[in-house]
């Protein structure tokens, strides 16, 4: 159990050391950050292997920390993205100490969310994520960063504030604070209130259509590492919260809200794809593709069968690595060209081949090509969705086609086509960026070929949750 507490403490310690270290010795922050994230990665692997991954939530000493099949994959994703973020922001010159400090604080907070075994601890960690993200977007962002940072903070804070009230109402109606295996459901009269209040916070985070408009602004303005953590892992807190807290607390209300949530999910898929089609800025395009992918998660959560929930976890992890790769590449490109206007880009496969190939790989993964991470989760969601909602899945099929359209259109306009003279002498990816791309490409292929890496861990836990809900 202590290793789980360490998983939160290590990044925090790293954050302090990085921040202080930078003061004493220029450039030491990034090495400290790299060391911390690698140690965190190793610890996570150790924790995953020793913890009874398949067992119910083994709660920590004072009920603060638990690791099981549901939170395991997401904690591992966080550790991986932590390393990638450090590599991606290796050359930040503006206050690296604070930058890496905040990044590690963010990682610690997110890990704490996934490991929290107590509702209030989960809420505290959930809010603790906001502050570093606000600073990352606000200080190191691009031109419109102040507005984007403010919008991100207030929008998410509004959602999570209502979530707090939901938690309080739940606690009043007999829910036990521990998220472990204890008897769970709230009195059925209070379930609608609890469910909708909790959903307010979760829906903003996932994001569920139409509560998504903060995402593109935050992504366009955030620095590379900020985008990677935001898209890669912060969105998953919503999905995780739904499965870990909202479903067990208010099962009947969740079933009743199923059709509405499914509709919002399907709209999210199609709407996100259509919006991505209309974008002229590469990062905004990737942000909308995230909205579309998370639409699958919402649909899966709405269906609510054990298979669908497993699919939701799978899509979350897959989208985590895929969008992280795309944002890593968009950030790397921005560092070189200082613009992400798709109209001004072109022929990059010829100019910077390594980047071009990685971008193509990312887009193929994003459009859900089988053999890559996106496909298994989306297929299982599609199948479960069809079984639950029948011919509504035609809209999802349209969404899948549109995903192909906007991804290939992006590749066509950015990577293919004749070389643009303006970008003649661009430097291709350096070894750090290639390592980061490799670190992401590996899981993308692994999950695509053998998805039960995640599903075999998540499926039993989810089945137990659903069984206990008596659904």
């Amino acid at each position: 159990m202590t290793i789980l507490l360490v998983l939160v403490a290590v990044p925090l310690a790293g954050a302090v050391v990085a921040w202080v270290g930078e003061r004493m010795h220029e450039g030491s922050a990034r090495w400290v950050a790299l060391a911390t994230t690698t140690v965190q990665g190793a610890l996570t692997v150790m924790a995953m292997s020793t913890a009874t991954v398949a067992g119910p939530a083994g709660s920590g000493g004072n009920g603060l920390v638990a690791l099981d099949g549901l939170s395991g994959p997401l904690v591992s994703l966080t550790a991986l993205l932590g390393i990638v973020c450090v590599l991606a922001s290796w050359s930040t010159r503006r206050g690296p100490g604070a930058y890496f400090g905040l990044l590690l604080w963010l990682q610690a907070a997110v890990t704490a969310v996934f490991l929290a075994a107590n509702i209030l601890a989960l809420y505290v960690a959930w809010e603790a994520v906001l502050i570093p993200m606000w600073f990352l977007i606000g200080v190191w962002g691009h031109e419109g960063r102040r507005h984007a940072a403010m919008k991100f903070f207030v929008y998410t804070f509004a959602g999570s504030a209502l979530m707090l009230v939901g938690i309080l109402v739940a606690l009043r109606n007999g829910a036990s604070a521990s998220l472990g295996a204890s008897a769970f459901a709230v009195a059925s009269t209070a379930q609608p209130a609890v469910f909708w209040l909790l959903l307010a916070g979760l829906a903003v985070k996932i994001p569920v259509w139409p509560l998504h408009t903060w995402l593109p602004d935050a992504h366009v303005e955030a620095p590379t590492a900020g985008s990677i953590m935001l898209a890669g892992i912060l969105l998953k807190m919503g999905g995780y919260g739904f499965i870990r807290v909202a479903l067990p607390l208010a099962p009947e209300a969740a079933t009743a809200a199923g059709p509405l949530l499914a509709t919002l999910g399907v709209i999210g898929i199609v709407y996100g794809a259509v919006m991505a089609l209309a974008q002229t800025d590469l990062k905004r395009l990737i942000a909308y593709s995230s909205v579309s992918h998370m639409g699958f998660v919402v649909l899966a959560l709405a269906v609510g069968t054990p298979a669908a929930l497993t699919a939701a976890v799978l899509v979350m992890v897959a989208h985590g690595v895929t969008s992280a790769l795309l944002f890593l590449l968009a950030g790397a490109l921005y560092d070189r060209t200082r613009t992400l206007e798709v109209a001004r880009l072109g022929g990059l496969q010829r100019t910077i081949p390594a980047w071009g190939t990685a971008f193509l790989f990312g887009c193929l993964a994003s459009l859900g090509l089988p053999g890559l991470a996106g496909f298994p989760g989306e297929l299982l969601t599609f199948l479960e969705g069809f079984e639950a909602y029948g011919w509504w899945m035609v809209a999802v099929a349209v969404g899948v086609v549109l995903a192909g359209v906007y991804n290939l259109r992006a590749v066509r306009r950015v990577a293919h086509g004749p070389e643009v003279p303006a970008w003649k002498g661009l430097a291709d990816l350096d070894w750090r960026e290639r390592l980061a791309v490799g670190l992401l490409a590996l899981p993308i292929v692994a999950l695509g070929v053998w998805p039960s890496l995640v599903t075999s861990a998540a499926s039993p836990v989810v089945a137990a949750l659903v069984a206990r809900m008596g659904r």
Partner: protein
Amino acid sequence: MTWTIIAPTLLAAAGAVCALAFDAFGMRRSASGAAVAGAVAAGAVPLALLPSSVSVAWVIPVLEAAVALITAVTLVGGWRRSTTSSSGPMSAALGGLVLSASLLVMITHDMVLLLVGLEAMGLAAYGLTALGGTAEAREATMKYVIQGAVATGLLIIGVSVLFVASGGSGGYAQVVTATGASPFPRSAIALAWALLACVLAFKCGAFPFHWWAPDVYEHSSPPAAALLASVPKIAVVVATAQLFVQRGLSSTMLTFATPVALIAALAAGSIVFGNLAALRQRSMRRMLAYSGIAQVGYALVGVVSRAPVAAMLCITLYGLAAAGAFLSVEAVGDGDPSWDGRIDTLAGLGSRRPRLAAAIAALMLSMTGIPLLAGFVGKLAVFSAAVDTGWTWLAVLGVVGSVVSFGYYGRVLGAAYLTGDGIAGSKVRSGAAEAATLLTAIAVVIAGMAPLFVGGLAALSLFAR
């Protein structure tokens, strides 16, 4: 034994008198020193006399100590000002008096003493505001006096009715029993309680009796504002909590069913008005003043949901942060005398004075109610009490208020960190204000983190009962 109860008030008053004496002999430094010593002594006594086992009896002494220490911090924060300008020692002495009156208000259980305490606090506040020295300060004081007078009138009527109804004794307990059976018709008693509620609302700056607050806090000297924005507010809210949720502190019986709706209206009004008006403010102190109105609203939610300890905790933790915030204004002023007190011209503070900026950030985020900081602990206690007693809509209003509050607290952070350029700070004249700000910031962080280690957050529900 009664002496030990009154000791803190007397010690604070003694400190003030010594300060005046020293000032008469022109010894400014020792005058300020005496005031600070008085405050610290006033804080030490209740702590020393704490009963061994932690119980509800701990609450009032701990709050007394907190109030005294906050006063000491504000006096230390104003050290440069009180040792250099001629009216300095006078404001230090008045600070001691405010503390002394506030302590009286907190511990008394007698209507008349409550009246005397409130008036003494008011008069000392008039003095402190006037010492701001500027034309606006004088104007603000005059307005404060006029409004204060009207409030005093209403207070006297209220107290007199209750005093006579309770057979001339005026003790809270007697008043409560008299409320049930008294020579007066029910409506007279209702009038008295209503007036009492309104005056207490006036004293702690709740809506719609808040008019004096923005002017006074903006134009009095920052250390004075730090004191006035925290200590009197805490005292009045503690008194309100005791009065309206009866002396037993834990008993859930409300003396009079009807004032609950009135206090709920005051609370809701304060939250809405305070948050909205603060959004528009350009001057930092005026913004803090309006946000104070909202924060009182949150505390009153605790009173409404019959959780006196939660209400006291909420207002005290806010008081701590508010004092720190006003002292930070003084600290920034120390660094750059030409600063016009506006938020937007705080630009670049994050890079120029990182420690101070970090302290300001902690204080702002605490007042917003972000977890791991003191404000969240207070708000969580109050809102969970509200939800438990069925006042869920008040909790939602409070929570939404906190979200809106990031609109203006966040703008301070935005100015400090997100904008590059800004006024080039000169050499810092004296570190006293910055030290005081840092002290409060650290206290806020520690208070925020405490529940994590003290048996997990679930323990918070202890406060909610």
